[in-house]
């Protein structure tokens, strides 16, 4: 019923398309540079700084922000919050695209991307935290693909396979939560091996738990943010059920995010206390740590709470932006800013603009893919054939 309007009514030349097109062209040029000149031509990576923003942003932030898929499907299918059902498909789609783009970004970052399957098929480095991350990300990408596939199959009219996958919902959801718990936390565990390089305020044996809990915050906040942006730009694709549940989702997820942020704030303090790191708080890094803790954890926690109590949807939506920024700040701190803090400033890493170019290119690809799919497949509305299925 919505199939044709976007292509027929408007011209393709919109400001958004022009900017996105430009970014894609620039991104392709940098891609050619990367794969003909090597990492040295497009990155500022060095022997001291082997990981830059392609890991710090594309991998660490990317995976955290794609957590909406497991958080939402767990809320609806396991915790029985059926009133958020309309939020599941957009969250799964965001998650699926997020993980797909993480894997794409890794092809730029690793030295020999055609060998990415090696840890599974050639030699298993089972003692490596990265092995676990790689295995879980690969498996979870497959799970997300299957979880997303019913939308595509409804669009294509493949009914039997669609119904088969639908029966697997609970199994896939639980598997998704298991895999997400493992790799979201393991991304933090990656840094456990380098206590001599990461600033003591950020280094903690609780890093895996911090990363897992923040992934829940990221997932909840991304669902709010994504639904806000979709409403703004893709409203015509939404059905009555989605529109009716939308504000409930914002309020409910805002409430959950606020409470999880409170828990995270508490465990961060226990972490400080158990590491006896108080003395660092007076230093420059300490002030930056407090900015992260109060500006990007405590503040969104309070703002979400006020927004939920006063049913102020606008406040909740803006807070979701702050919370998502907080995830970016946290991952950058662990991976880039507080990492190698012992080195003189001349040896520290600052991203090359071409690295930033690739990251923007990949995010743009994600937005374009999201729009392409949402304007075609039943994501924000229920397909007419399956109106009564839930």
């Amino acid at each position, binding site marked *: 019923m919505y199939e044709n309007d976007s292509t027929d009514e408007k011209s393709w030349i919109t400001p958004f398309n022009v900017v996105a097109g430009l970014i894609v062209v620039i991104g392709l040029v940098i891609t050619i540079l990367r794969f003909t000149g090597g990492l040295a031509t497009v990155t500022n990576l060095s022997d001291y700084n082997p990981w830059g923003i392609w890991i710090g942003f594309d991998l660490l932030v990317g995976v955290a922000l794609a957590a909406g898929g497991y958080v939402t499907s767990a809320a609806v299918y396991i915790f029985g919050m059926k009133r958020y059902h309309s939020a599941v498909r957009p969250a799964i789609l965001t998650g699926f695209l997020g993980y797909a783009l993480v894997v794409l970004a890794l092809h730029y970052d690793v030295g020999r991307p055609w060998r990415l399957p090696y840890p599974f098929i050639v030699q*298993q480095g089972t003692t490596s935290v990265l092995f676990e991350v790689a295995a879980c990300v690969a498996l979870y990408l497959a799970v997300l693909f299957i979880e997303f596939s019913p939308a595509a199959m409804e669009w294509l009219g493949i009914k039997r396979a669609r119904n088969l996958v639908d029966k697997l919902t609970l199994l896939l959801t639980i598997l998704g939560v298991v895999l997400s718990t493992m790799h979201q936390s393991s991304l933090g565990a990656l840094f456990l091996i380098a206590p001599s390089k990461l600033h003591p305020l950020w280094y903690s044996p609780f890093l895996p738990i911090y990363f897992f809990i923040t992934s829940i915050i990221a997932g909840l906040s991304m669902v709010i943010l994504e639904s806000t942006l979709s409403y703004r730009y893709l409203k015509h694709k939404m059905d009555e059920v989605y529109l009716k549940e939308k504000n409930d989702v914002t309020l409910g997820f805002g409430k959950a995010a606020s409470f999880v942020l409170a828990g995270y704030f508490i465990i961060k303090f226990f972490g400080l206390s158990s590491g006896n790191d108080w003395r660092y708080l007076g230093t420059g890094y300490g002030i930056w740590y407090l900015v992260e803790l109060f500006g990007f954890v405590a503040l969104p926690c309070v703002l979400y709470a006020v927004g939920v109590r006063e049913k102020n949807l606008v406040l909740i939506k803006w807070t979701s932006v702050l919370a998502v920024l907080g995830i970016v700040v946290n991952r950058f701190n662990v991976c880039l800013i507080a990492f190698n803090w012992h080195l003189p400033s001349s040896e520290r890493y600052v991203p090359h603009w071409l690295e930033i170019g690739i990251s923007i290119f990949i995010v743009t690809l994600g937005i374009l893919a999201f729009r392409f799919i949402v304007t075609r497949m039943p994501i924000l509305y229920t397909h007419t054939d399956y109106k009564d299925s839930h």
Partner: protein
Amino acid sequence: MDNVFYTLHDFFFHTESITYLLIVPVLVGITLFWKFLAEKEDE
């Protein structure tokens, strides 16, 4: 049995490898066991 682990790394490599091998049958097994448990109720 004449092999001995000389390093912690080798020991972990051995135990972790077995853990990963076990995970697959464990996940399948627990799923089937739940089906066995819940089967009668659903009818």
